[in-house]
């Protein structure tokens, strides 16, 4: 497991100050290059999605169908991760561009952006890996840490995880509706209903676009509507699987730590940083890989600096690594194949009560 050194309050302050200094240095350097970058990402998203949708109009002919589906999936992955997720964190708010405003951006998935801004930006990023506070620990479906109380429900969690991977965008949407709390009788129907309505509205819009409008358009121009529909389904599925894999590697790897709720009492800035560092894990890979993960491959840097443009994480990581080493903290990183294997192992092992 982890071999972190415990830090004294004074050390924590110094640790926090070093990370703050890196933050300020990077913020001061933001400028035209970052603005150009995110607009290029957006252009790439539009290009991929448009090209994908055009190619799908050529029907089942394998080269165009496969390429069309892949391009559409790629566009959706980029939009979801590098554009939507990062913009919605307010990473580009400094640009003052209403189209890239974190509070107003609406992404191309069934989960309403408002839901995500609450469950993810607020709950997950503030209470990262704190048992009982951060719903992202297993998303209420999985037991991934021995510190989570076992329930018989978890016995079949391999199945639940598989379903979640296949339907990940729906899992993201449902999380905010708090159906688990509703079924336990902890919140009332009146609290759930407006959320449910908002979610249903977004799902209908997404379905209407992917599964109705474009297939109908195909019919209208004499193309194969079924090929278009299937292409959309597969593209969404690809995105679900990829985002699931990346996000589960962020906090559920072998060396990711969880925390009891007590740590939140009068928590210092330094300790908040420490918790982000210990609770997150990185993935190693090339530049394209990092972009496809929305730079969540730099999950540690993302959690230390959720509002700094993600394209900066790679260069910040070098310094964060040195700071972590200086304070005797492990820096959890590895290739995706290895990291995800440890996640799968957790899903398998902690399905049983005695595994602690």
């Amino acid at each position: 497991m982890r071999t972190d050194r415990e830090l004294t309050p004074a050390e924590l302050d110094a640790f926090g100050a070093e990370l703050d200094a890196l933050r300020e240095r990077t913020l001061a350097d933001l400028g035209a290059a970052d603005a150009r970058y995110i607009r290029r990402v957006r252009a790439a998203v539009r290009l991929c999605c448009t090209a994908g949708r055009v190619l799908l109009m050529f029907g089942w002919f394998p080269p165009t169908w496969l390429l069309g589906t892949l391009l559409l999936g790629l566009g959706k992955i980029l939009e979801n991760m590098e554009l939507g997720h990062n913009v919605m964190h307010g990473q580009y708010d400094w640009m003052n561009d209403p189209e890239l405003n974190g509070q107003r951006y609406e992404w191309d998935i069934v989960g309403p952006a408002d839901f995500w801004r609450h469950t993810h930006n607020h709950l997950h990023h503030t209470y990262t890996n704190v048992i009982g506070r951060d719903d992202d620990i297993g998303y209420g479906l999985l037991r991934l840490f021995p510190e989570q109380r076992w329930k018989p429900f978890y016995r079949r969690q391999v199945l639940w995880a598989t379903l979640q991977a296949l339907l990940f965008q729906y899992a993201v949407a449902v999380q905010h509706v708090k159906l688990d709390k509703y079924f336990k009788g902890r919140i009332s129907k009146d609290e759930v209903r407006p959320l449910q309505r908002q979610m249903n509205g977004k799902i209908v819009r997404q379905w209407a676009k992917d599964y109705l409008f474009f297939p109908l358009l195909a019919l209208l121009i004499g193309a194969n509507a079924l090929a278009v529909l299937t292409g959309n389904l597969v593209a969404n599925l690809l995105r679900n699987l990829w985002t699931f894999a990346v996000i589960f590697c962020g906090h559920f790897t072998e060396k990711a730590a969880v925390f009891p709720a007590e740590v939140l009492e009068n928590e210092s800035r330094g300790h908040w940083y420490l918790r982000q560092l210990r609770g997150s894990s990185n993935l190693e890979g090339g530049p394209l890989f990092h972009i496809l993960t929305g730079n969540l491959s730099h999950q540690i840097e993302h959690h230390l600096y959720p509002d700094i443009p993600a394209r900066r994480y790679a260069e910040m990581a070098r310094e964060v690594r040195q700071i972590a080493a200086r304070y005797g903290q492990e820096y959890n990183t590895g290739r995706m194949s290895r990291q995800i294997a440890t996640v799968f192992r957790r899903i398998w092992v902690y399905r049983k009560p005695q595994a602690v």
Partner: protein
Amino acid sequence: MPSFVFSSAGWLQPLRLLVAHGWLREAGVDAWLGALRADWRLNRTFARVHSLRWVAADMLALRLKANRNWPGARPGQAVLVYGERDGVRLARCYSLTAVRGRVLELAIKRQPGGRFADKLIDTLLPGDVLELGAPSGELEWPRDADSGVLLLAAGSGITALYGLLREALAKGCKQPVWLLHSVRRREQRAFVPELQALMARHPNLRVQWLITGEPAGEGELHGRLGAEHLRDLPAHSLLACGPHGFVQKALSLWSAEPRAGTAQWEAFSPPPAQVAGAGQAVRLEFARSGLRAEGDDQRSLLEQAEARGLKPKHGCRQGICTECTCQLLEGRVRDLRSGRETSEPGQPIRICVSAPLSDVRIDL
């Protein structure tokens, strides 16, 4: 392309409805519209530069044609012109010197250290496209002023008053009007041939220039604005436009004598800057809640809003989660963590870690 298809804004209406109900995203639609024609947008106002002409040594007048989203304005009002520097969208306010339907004229003056204006002046070409904000400004031609109107402008303050004056004369204003434009150097006098032509056509108009920084020419006044320049003026109503200090001076001179008319003014530089976080009182305006209150420059805007009974959406209260982000509409705020200051209108700020440095208006 048959012109009747695009002859009215109506063809965009279905798209607007789809966007308003969340079926389409405005940014996506705008990208396609903008690709078709640079000034086409669904809701935002963009304008094409028609022509450029120098109206003073340091002032460039633009004639623009706005797209159909232009809400209309009066001369003398100002519009925000948007631009970008170092990746940041900035906006500056320029007065309209003329408005005819969607054809607008505004004038941009070089400002010392004003990189925004300089960039516009140095790079704009006919055919370029600019984004405009909604028109604002309360100045209007005095209705009750049979006994005369005094127009006092300093520097680029001439633009607002020139717009008002031209419109009033065109509408047949017969009352005595006296315009005094104060500039540092003679070459900074703006719209000189236009004003002289107006004087020739309208005997009730008198225009004079006040040169503050070099010897005055014939018929011009010299020195800073003072009581001697305004002595024995019949004017009863005042319109003043210029930097803060000039407007203050104009108002005190005007009110030194009893006048029947009204005074209107617009100052385009902020009052002298305060020392950061010195414990001064500021005025807060929460625009969406319609609440105005006294505040201080120590505590965060979130705390101060809550102390006034508002319940802004918020999350972590430490500047992490961005849940409390809202737009700064006017004024200057300081980031309590880094001390960084922001005063860009429309800039998203996190109110849990932002304290006001001046009177502020936020979209809350």
